[in-house]
């Protein structure tokens, strides 16, 4: 599953932040899941939990939060969400799931039709916060 690759990336990034510190220093990790990429939260949660258990910092907690997608047109300034991007086929959605930038092939500004827009937030997987125990700082 594609979600495993992203979960592995979260684990690798967490490990790199911890570099040089005792793994028990890790308190928590908060992960944002962008709505645009439409990650299967159940699979991602399972993958992250499984990989988490393999690491020495398994006593730390992690939380997942879904971030709604917000798009903004550079041509006319219109802002909109995915619910205002009708007509996406399941094949389009699958392509965006694998590569969120594929959205630029299928979504246009609902106001002026321009392809020149940006995904302001809610693109994909990112780490919102990595908490380190105060005593380790």
């Amino acid at each position, binding site marked *: *599953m*594609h979600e*495993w*690759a*992203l979960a*592995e*990336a*979260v684990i*690798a*990034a*967490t*490990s*790199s*932040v911890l570099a040089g510190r005792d793994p028990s220093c890790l308190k928590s990790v908060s992960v*944002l899941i962008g709505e645009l990429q439409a990650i299967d939260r159940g699979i991602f949660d399972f993958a992250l939990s499984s990989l988490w258990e393999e690491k020495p910092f398994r006593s730390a907690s992690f939380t997942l939060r879904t971030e709604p997608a917000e798009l903004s047109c550079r041509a006319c300034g219109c802002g909109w969400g995915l619910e205002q991007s009708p007509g996406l086929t399941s*094949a389009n959605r*699958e*392509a*965006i799931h*694998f*590569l*969120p*930038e*594929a959205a*630029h*092939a*299928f979504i246009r500004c609902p106001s002026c039709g321009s*392809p*020149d827009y*940006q*995904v302001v937030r809610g*693109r*994909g*997987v*990112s*780490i*919102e916060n*990595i908490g380190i125990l105060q005593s380790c700082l």
Partner: protein
Amino acid sequence: MMDPRESIIGTRLGRVGRIIGFSSAKGGVGKTLCTTTAAVVLARAGRRVGVLDLDLQGASAHIFLGVQPRMPAEDRGILPLSAAENLFFMSASIFAGEKALALRGSEVSDAIRELLAVTQWGPLDCLLVDMPPGIGDEVLDLARLIPRLEALVISTPSAVSVAVVRRLLAVLAEMRVPVSGVVANMAAGRADSVREMAAQSGNAFAGEVQVDGAIEAAIGDVVRLASTTAAADLCKVLAAIGLL
């Protein structure tokens, strides 16, 4: 906010041998022809080869290789498409199909990081990267994300191409990206200007690829691509840079 993808790219490429960006600051010099034909030559010689098309806005490597865009299989990531025996392929075109991708710099960078973070190449002897023209996000990102990246620099003998490619060689030197060789494409027996540019910049001249009238008819057919004179010329180039 932290982007976790960069932390896993080294692991994803951990079983890949040499990684070579087929590069030129000038458009239309035959980067994609050289990348795909070289990959076909290597694959038919028994090497496991990957082709990564990073020309996101002008993707065409799939057309040369005859790969029909389709959703990839998944196994703890996405698996590259098989283009032929020993030849594996990944591109944004797999996802966008034949639709235009109008991307700005930050979106190009995001797409590159995503492709590098989630593609499971597995063991490869080499990964050939079809770079877009210019010295933009793709070149800068790849050099930063893949510290062991090499460049095979391609130019035609035209004074215009040589002048522009000379700038790329200077930037690659500043970024400490090793140049495995400089190739004269569409040489037509007059590769001296490219040979001189390579020497003046302190790089090795890797050979020349002649204009091949049979290429157009071979596009999309890896067997025919392998029998072109361009393939024979690229064989010598690949030997010169130690890939064959």
